[in-house]
């Protein structure tokens, strides 16, 4: 009996891993893609291999977009409303609750991390797409205008799908 229960527990482990991946595949397949401008990059994760650590322009929310009386604390959920600004999407508004969007807008959900120092104190937000894993043989990202293709679901969950350097896919 205990062996059967053990086998059931092991099967659950396998199902969780496979089911999680299937859910991600399903969500990715249905999410529309947008492009975001990347401000900085930096490499490497010991456990998961070589990656490019990205810092997006939309991660810094200007203080003027925040409601003074209801500033978020680290860990609070944030919905950032994006709209096309040239080739990429940029921040147009911020909400503490899931917002209603205009036709050309997209929403991306993240978590408040900290307020940067300085007089204007912009808010730094993390979206969970800051790492892009690349082959070890790919070398460092070449210099040039770096952009990221991100699939964003209707409720704002983002998935980093590709990187572009000067408009060409990397690696």
């Amino acid at each position, binding site marked *: 009996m205990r062996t059967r229960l053990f086998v059931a527990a*092991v099967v659950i482990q396998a199902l969780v891993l496979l089911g999680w991946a299937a859910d991600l595949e399903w969500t990715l397949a249905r999410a529309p893609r947008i492009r975001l401008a990347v401000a900085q990059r930096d490499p490497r994760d010991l456990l998961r291999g070589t990656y490019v650590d990205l810092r997006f322009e939309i991660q810094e929310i200007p203080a003027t977009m925040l409601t003074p009386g209801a500033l978020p604390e680290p*860990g609070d959920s944030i919905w950032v409303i994006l709209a096309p600004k040239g080739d990429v999407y940029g921040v147009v508004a911020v909400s503490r609750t899931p917002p209603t969007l205009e036709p050309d807008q997209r929403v991306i959900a993240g978590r408040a991390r900290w307020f940067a120092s300085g007089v204007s104190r912009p808010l730094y937000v993390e979206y969970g797409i800051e790492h892009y894993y690349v082959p070890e043989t790919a070398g460092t990202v070449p210099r040039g205008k770096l952009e990221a293709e991100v699939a964003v679901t209707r409720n704002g969950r983002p998935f980093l799908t590709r990187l572009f350097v000067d408009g060409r896919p990397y690696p």
Partner: protein
Amino acid sequence: MAPSFAHRLRDEAPRWVRDGVISAQQAEAILARYPASAAWFSRPIGIFSLLGGALLVAATALLVAHNWHEIPRWIKLGGLVTLMLAAYAAGLGIRARGYDKLAAGLFVLGGGLVLVGIALIGQIYNLSGRQSDAVLLWWVLILPAGYLLPSIPVVVLGWLGASAWYVLLLFDRSTLGRDVHYDPPLGLVAVAAAGALTWALGVLHGDGEYRRVRQFGEQIGLLAVGGALLPLGIFGDRVWWTSAPAPRWPIAVLALLALAVLVLVVAPVRLPPDRLAVRLGPSAALLLVVLYLFVAVIALATRAPAGTFRLLGWIDWALLFGVALSLILYGARWDRTSWINWGIVWIGADALARYIELFGSMLQTSALFFVTGIFVLLLGWALERLRRRMTARAAAFQRTP
């Protein structure tokens, strides 16, 4: 690995002769019939098999590594899940043949591959969320499997995962670490509270098939409680308190303290049979620690005056000494040598900390090192004598019917 039949015969035969089951001549005849063979790994075929297997594994690993990004993601994940299931299945099969240690190794490998699977999904889909969430998923998945089998190494691996998850939370400013960031001593309070909880959870495993988990939980718990109470003893120093307004009540730390109280109250049920007042003793000692931690949280959250923290520091010294003493006495009573050892370590560390705190600013550095060296040697000698005496008493107590 289980000993072979021939090796077991060599162990058992002298006892059979001594007990009069068989004669010495019969024992020799039986042993001659089953000559002991050399260990499998010392035979040439064993060595060649090991070498060949290692080369094959290395070649496969290199092949996979060189083509990693060309391998379709479902093949990667499927391969890893297959490896994980194979490790568990091989563990079950080998355990059925009596090779318990090898089976335990395979179960641990299976449990480790679950974590690799979680990391792989993170890599494939470029997920970079909270690391604590990945570790949480891992230990929640493997712990039930460990208990169900039972496989003590997998259970211990799961508890180590839970400990790592808790430490990650303490450093994560978007979770428990938010309160710790504003009030660093809260980190020590949270560690001590988790230690008391872990000790009580360890005790709840009893002396049956989960005895090793009990020992592990108790040791980890006592390490955490002692490791946190020691620095909290210098609460009186201005480093540990601030007059800045507290941002909010640390609800998560208070909830953890409440949970620790609950489990500490239940824990005596699984302690060895004894008078009720005696069985309540160890939990009562750690409940005092939890009460102290609760007062410390209130003092931090209300930004109490400096004198309060100085008083808390003195109480911490006394508490550390008192709980250590009770651990030694109860450890001797119930033959729990790890309690005795940790009690001795606590007393030694407490004495050393108090000594340095007292004389650190009064002596020049070289004189301080010299006198402290002598103090540490004498303290170590005295504590070792105490430990041996208590351990011997515990053993004698157990031998008495």
